[in-house]
């Protein structure tokens, strides 16, 4: 093991490789912070550079782009309420309110440290127990994956405990939107009303950008007073010299950081799950275990830490099935695998046995990236934070333009911009009527995974629903979900009885 680590670091600290990793980190953070450039798109954009490198350097470079882009997504989520990557959406819940209070620097500090911690935990997990973790992940069939996605959905019950019915309705709207388009099993068109555009389904990124960014600009447009105080830029979080969190403050979030990092790593390993589900799940679990759940969503560090540690944990997790089994866990991993295959590397179970230096270099590059990333991101975040001091009459429209590009860049389709606008208006209506936009996003993210795995499991069990739930892992997870979903309804009855 020690030899493996030495090999990894000797590869990574070779001057050229190290420079590529630092360059990849800078590219990753910038790309990640750009609305509409997802982590997989960032890796794809960096791919042409990797062709000219040796395979082992190429994978180290692409890993650094991947890890850094997930972190970069948190910067715009905190400063502008535009999640740079979908996995940063939960970061907006607490990050943006903190930035609005003039604590942008602190929020970014928490985000970066948590990201680095999550990434390091995942890197160690990958290096130490990669084959074992992959073996466990292989035991997850459709019924278990359905249970995991259902666990994600059970989060709905705790997103807004004051408006539980409306939150669940919002989640149902999201789940319904995920049904639009081709049916995942049989390819039957559903709710497309004859439109060929709708056949590919409702795109997640435009909806997310619309619900978070456009809605926020519309809200600010409606708040005349807020706009009038634009001369006092610090009131809008434009204080770029804002203090970073102290060691003591960071130490106070240690359990959240550990929980979210481990959870993110585990979720990242599961094929099809990924960083977005990891961050939502970690946020929800934080809300369940927190001593002050009512404060989550109002701008407290725990929410940022949970989301960012989990989505970075998932980056390491995603590398586990790729390196151990040759199965890409997500889009970014698939692109990295393509880069290796093009260079003639046989990715699969034999890779770790016959060429352990690949695992070593990935581990070492993740390790280095997660440390370099904090320094690089802080510099980039300061530049981004300066934008907050721009008057809102300029900043507001710029946010809409960036959101427009973000929505458009998903498929180079102006139809997605229209979708973003519709989502923005619905988001405003939701906020007025106290529905929950985050719940809608969660339903949209998890809908197809939940449905396709449930139906696949049903077919595998020859049409037995009992058969699906009788699998031990599925039974345990689904039972926990049912308790989580029912508890908010039962809780008032219990307290009433006690009184």
């Amino acid at each position: 093991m020690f030899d493996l680590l030495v090999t990894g670091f000797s590869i990574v600290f070779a001057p050229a490789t190290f420079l590529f990793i630092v360059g990849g980190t800078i590219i990753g953070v910038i790309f990640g912070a750009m609305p509409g450039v997802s982590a997989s798109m960032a890796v794809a954009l960096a791919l042409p550079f990797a062709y000219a490198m040796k395979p082992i350097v190429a994978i180290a470079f692409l890993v650094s782009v991947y890890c850094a882009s997930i972190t970069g997504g948190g910067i715009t989520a905190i400063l502008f309420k535009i999640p740079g990557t979908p996995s940063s959406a939960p970061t907006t819940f607490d990050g943006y309110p903190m930035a609005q209070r003039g604590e942008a620097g602190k929020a970014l500090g928490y985000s970066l440290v948590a990201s680095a911690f999550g990434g390091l935990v995942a890197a160690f997990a990958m290096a130490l127990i990669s084959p074992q973790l992959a073996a466990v992940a292989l035991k997850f069939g459709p019924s278990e994956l359905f249970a995991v996605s259902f666990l994600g959905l059970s989060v709905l019950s705790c997103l807004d405990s004051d408006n539980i019915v409306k939150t669940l309705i919002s989640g149902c709207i999201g789940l319904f939107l995920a049904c639009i388009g081709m049916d995942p099993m049989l390819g039957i068109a559903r709710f497309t009303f004859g439109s060929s555009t709708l056949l590919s389904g409702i795109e997640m990124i435009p909806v997310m950008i619309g619900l978070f960014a456009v809605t926020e600009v519309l809200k600010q447009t409606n708040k005349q007073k807020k706009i009038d105080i634009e001369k006092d830029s610090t009131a809008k979080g434009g204080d770029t010299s804002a203090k970073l969190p102290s060691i003591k403050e960071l130490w106070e979030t240690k359990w959240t950081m550990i929980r979210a990092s481990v959870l993110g790593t585990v979720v990242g390993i599961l094929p099809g799950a990924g960083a977005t589900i990891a961050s939502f799940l970690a946020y929800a679990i934080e809300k369940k275990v927190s001593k002050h759940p009512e404060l989550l969503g109002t701008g407290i560090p725990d929410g940022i830490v949970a989301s960012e540690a989990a989505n970075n944990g998932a980056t390491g997790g995603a590398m586990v099935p790729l390196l151990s089994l040759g199965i890409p866990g997500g889009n970014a991993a698939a692109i990295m695998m393509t880069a290796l295959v093009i260079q003639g590397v046989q990715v699969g179970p034999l890779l770790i046995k016959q060429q352990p230096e690949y695992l070593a270099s990935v581990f070492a590059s993740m390790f280095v990236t997660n440390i370099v990333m904090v320094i690089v991101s802080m510099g980039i975040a300061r530049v981004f934070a300066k934008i907050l001091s721009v008057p809102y009459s300029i900043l507001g429209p710029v946010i809409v333009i960036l959101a427009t590009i973000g929505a458009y860049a998903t498929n180079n389709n102006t139809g997605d911009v229209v979708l973003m606008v519709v989502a923005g208006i619905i988001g405003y209506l939701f906020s007025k009527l106290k529905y929950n936009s985050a719940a809608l996003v969660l339903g949209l993210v998890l809908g197809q995974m939940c449905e396709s795995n449930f139906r696949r499991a049903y077919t595998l069990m020859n049409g037995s629903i009992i058969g699906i739930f009788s699998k031990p892992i599925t039974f345990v997870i689904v039972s926990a979900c049912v308790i989580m979903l029912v508890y908010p309804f039962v809780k008032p009855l219990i307290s009433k009885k006690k009184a």
Partner: protein
Amino acid sequence: MDIIFSAFLIIAGIGLFSMIGADPSAAASETELGAAFWPQIVLTIMIVLSVVNIVTALKKMKAEGKTITSEIDVAGFFKSKLFIGMIAVAVLALVLPTIGFVPSCILFLIGYGVLLKAPDIPKLAIAAVLITIVIYILFQGALDIMLPRGTGVFRELALVFERILPF
């Protein structure tokens, strides 16, 4: 408003439920749940919850002595900045394919800035042009994202811009 929205969800839910149920290709078989199964489950839950929401809202309204329309100010909404803002964003999305990114970006930045009461219009116009240039170079040039060119003369203009890009 809440009750109207919930009622809309119920009506839409019932309509969509029937629509997918009427599709014979979406029906279940012995070992396949069918394309209608999942949406129908989701829609059923949504309808039930919307009914619960209406009942709760009606109870609350009764207790507060309000009516369904007492909080709705339609005329006020159409005169509000919010409505103009919504229209501006919608217009941006609709004109983007026709006039392309650069003109729509400049016009939107100026228009929305005026809506947000920018104190100095000439400065706003200069800022709008500069911001558009920076965004265009960054996304179209450096990140190679093909921003909408528009049609006709706007397309020709966009092609000229692309030729002079530094990347």
